């Protein structure tokens, strides 16, 4: 091996060893499609080896799933014609992460296109041509894996909002769309900070939490361009994995407000949808609580822990299992910055990974370490996860939890979306 080759190999090795987390996507024919470090062509030998190993197991009528050694976990998901791979320092929630990334790819291509592409174009086709912007989408997913406490809990995160304000928005969206005689809007969604504010939909359509996650990640990729309007095709795999909806994306109040998404079945609907947005903004001005509403949506009313009356409670996550909706407390000392929050969210993530591995048979859980304590209470109707100080006694934790349940039930209308969304014609 020449000195240059050796240097390259050394660079590559250092690169691989340094990155704590990577996602790789390749075709089942071994062609690189995506790599987190951005240099997928340089990694082609690794990609080829993964492909060989996956195919070898296939000849043995077996499916390769993961390789692990100390400090390294490689999770592999073969979804023909793609092979997806995560290389991570820790083993938690990797399969779920691959599902989310794969759904993200589907949202750009649709199942049918993906299935047909190599048949029509041949094994050597470079899929990257059809995946413009895939890096932004995957990065948005990864951001969610670290920063969104709800991402592995399969539920919608709801922005806390005054009941009547939310009802007003829902009715406003529905009437705007129906009065414009638009029969092709499947969903109208209002989102801020990865949280759902309001949704209206056609009666027979349904939006799953996983599709909502795709919508949220789509918004993330357009986050930096808040002025103006966008109209992009999107496939929602749970809604219809072989077809496209066309998403009109725009931010209210010239970019300062939440994101309005109108998902239409028609690719020509842009102008109609644009008019809807203007109509919505206009009608909002006439709302008697306009000032408070605008304030709530631009600076959300945080759900303070102080209401729970326990000094040692630092963060919580509450899920209504039936509604599949989750609300979280806002950050408070000592965990405020993103890095600090990521640290305690890891407690939630480890727990959800463990619970999933034992088929969700955990009913109650208390974990005490030097930096915090995690208490989780799971029943058929709710899930409550609390982060306490490490010095909290089990008695205090239990009493606080019981107290919290009462308070949260009282506030359910505020923190959850309990209105009927099936209001659109079509």
């Amino acid at each position, binding site marked *: 091996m020449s000195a240059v080759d050796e240097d390259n190999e*050394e660079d*590559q*090795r*250092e690169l*691989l*060893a340094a990155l704590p987390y990577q996602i790789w996507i390749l075709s089942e024919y071994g062609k690189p499609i995506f790599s987190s470090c951005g240099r997928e062509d340089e990694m082609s030998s*690794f990609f080829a*080896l*993964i492909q*060989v*190993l996956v195919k*070898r*197991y296939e000849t*043995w*009528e*077996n*499916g*390769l*799933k*993961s*390789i*692990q*050694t*100390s400090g*390294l976990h*490689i999770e592999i998901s073969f979804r023909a014609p793609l092979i997806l791979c995560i*290389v991570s320092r820790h083993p*938690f929630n990797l399969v779920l992460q691959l599902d989310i990334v794969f759904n993200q790819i589907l949202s750009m291509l649709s199942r049918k296109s993906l299935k047909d592409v190599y048949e029509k174009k041949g094994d050597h086709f470079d899929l990257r041509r059809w995946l413009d912007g895939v890096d932004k989408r995957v990065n948005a997913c990864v951001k969610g894996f670290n920063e969104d406490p709800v991402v592995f809990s399969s539920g919608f995160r709801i922005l806390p909002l005054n009941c009547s304000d939310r009802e007003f928005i829902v009715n406003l969206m529905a009437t705007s769309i129906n009065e414009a005689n638009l029969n092709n809007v499947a969903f109208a969604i209002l989102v801020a900070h990865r949280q759902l504010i309001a949704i209206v939909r056609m009666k027979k359509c349904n939006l799953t939490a996983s599709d909502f996650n795709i919508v949220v990640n789509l918004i993330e990729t357009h986050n930096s361009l808040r002025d103006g309007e966008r109209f992009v095709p999107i496939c929602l795999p749970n809604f219809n994995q072989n077809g496209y909806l066309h998403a009109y994306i725009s931010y209210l109040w010239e970019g300062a407000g939440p994101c309005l998404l109108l998902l239409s079945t028609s690719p020509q609907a842009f102008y109609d949808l644009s008019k809807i947005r203007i109509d919505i903004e206009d009608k909002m001005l006439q709302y008697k609580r306009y000032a408070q509403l605008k304030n709530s949506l631009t600076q959300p009313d945080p759900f303070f822990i102080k209401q729970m009356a326990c000094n040692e409670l630092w963060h919580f996550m509450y899920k209504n299992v039936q509604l599949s909706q989750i609300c979280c407390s806002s950050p408070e000392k000592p965990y405020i910055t993103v890095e600090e929050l990521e640290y305690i969210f890891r407690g939630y993530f*480890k*727990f959800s*990974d*463990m619970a999933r*591995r*034992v*088929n969700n*048979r*955990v*009913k*109650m*859980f*208390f*974990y*005490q*370490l*030097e930096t915090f304590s995690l*208490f989780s209470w799971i029943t058929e109707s709710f899930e409550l996860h609390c982060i306490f100080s490490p010095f909290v*006694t*089990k*008695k205090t*934790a*239990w009493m606080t939890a019981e107290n919290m349940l009462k308070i949260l039930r009282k506030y359910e209308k505020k923190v959850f979306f309990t209105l009927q969304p099936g209001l659109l014609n079509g």
Partner: protein
Amino acid sequence: MERVLYGKKTAYMMSPGYSATTPKSEFLKLIDLMEYFFVSRPASGRREGFEYQRVMYFNPETENSSKQTDVSGVAEAFIAFTENFRKRAEVVAEYDHRFVKSTKLLEIFVQVENSEYIIGLGLNRQACNEHDYFVHMSSLKALLIRTYETFRLFYGTFSDLFETGKGILMQRLDQFFSHYLSLLRVHQIPLIDLFSGVGFMNMPPVDYLDVQCLISRCSESFPMIKKTLFLYQDKMVEYSVSKNDIIVVYRYLTQHLVQSAVQSELKPVASATYRETETKKFIGKFITGVTEDFIGQEESVDHQFPNVFLSDDNGKMISHALIAYRALNATFCLFVKNEDMPSLDLQELQQSLDSELSRLASNIGDNVSSITRTITSSDIPFHYVYYNPDSLSLKTSFVDSPSDLSNVPLPPPAIYKQVCETFDHFIDTDTEKFAQVCCKADDDWWVVVKKVNGRVLTLFIPSTPTSNITDIHDIVEQIIKSYFLNLFIV
């Protein structure tokens, strides 16, 4: 235990599980779950067209040669591939592993002897499900390592054998593993296989000091004795064998040597191996080297004792003679290097040991009966596993002698999975020295794991549907106060 012919001698093969009297449901035979097992030497298979030569041993032997080559080849591929993610300067553990999961199999590859050899084990997922066995990869790795170390105990390292001849290595591997694998058992609770530990004897300090005195006097009078091990019944009292070897040595001694000695002692007096002349003079006797029961290589030309390989300070394996002397219920094992054996006077040794050892054994015996095991008569039913990685002490209620049969029901199999997952997610981390987890799971059993300074106590508590964490907190405090008070003191 079964009789197997080795050359001209008959030998008992050790049963690598626990005592024959433990309930069957707690163990499973590995062979019922196993898809394959192999030992390969990558360097022997580098030549194109001759890759099959890397396979030193493969089980089942009926598997065709190309499949054997494939399986061992893929193992090498996994190892090489994952190496790319390591920084060049990164220090690799002694037993580097790869765990590979696929839809049908669970595979473990462990590199031994400076990564020159690979030991591979594949388990069939379906078989494991049918037996309700939760596969905990780290526990199986520990089992695999012990299997290798057991081989090494009797035959020395793979490399040393290979040097004498490839055929010799292959023959020894076949000789050992073909039989050993059919006997190897896994515990239903994987954690017990994970914690490679030794059962220590609870002893009054005076008796313990007595034992230490005996050992020191013996070592002084007979300087060729390099390592010792003192057992009472099947429990460890004191040892000076290296930590690298102690687990397999302890298992061999308690599960084979001591067991067969006990069995022959229980036989009626008119047994053929009984020597009349010695009974009048001595209470105890040698239990290795004087009977036909031994294992491993054919007896050495220098002496009649079995050979075992123990590591020295540099990690090299040196052949020692295993001299075991037993009086009443105490077994005193001495390890002498082969080259020093001629200078050891066995009669003098027996003379010097016998009366003192018998007296000690008798004292300990008197005290043992007064150390009542109160745990099983506890009001609160529970099971436990305690492990101290520094002393290698392992105590558990799941494997006890029959006299302590507890009437606490065994947890449902889902709980074993729960405890392993809890352990992997929250306890088995290098970053936290202190952690505690309470988890209410299937059928309302509670699993409580407490880690303090590396020592781990796991409790399994059957409970009621309405119990919450405050209830369990009280119960756990009570249990620790009554039975485990001193375990966490440094």
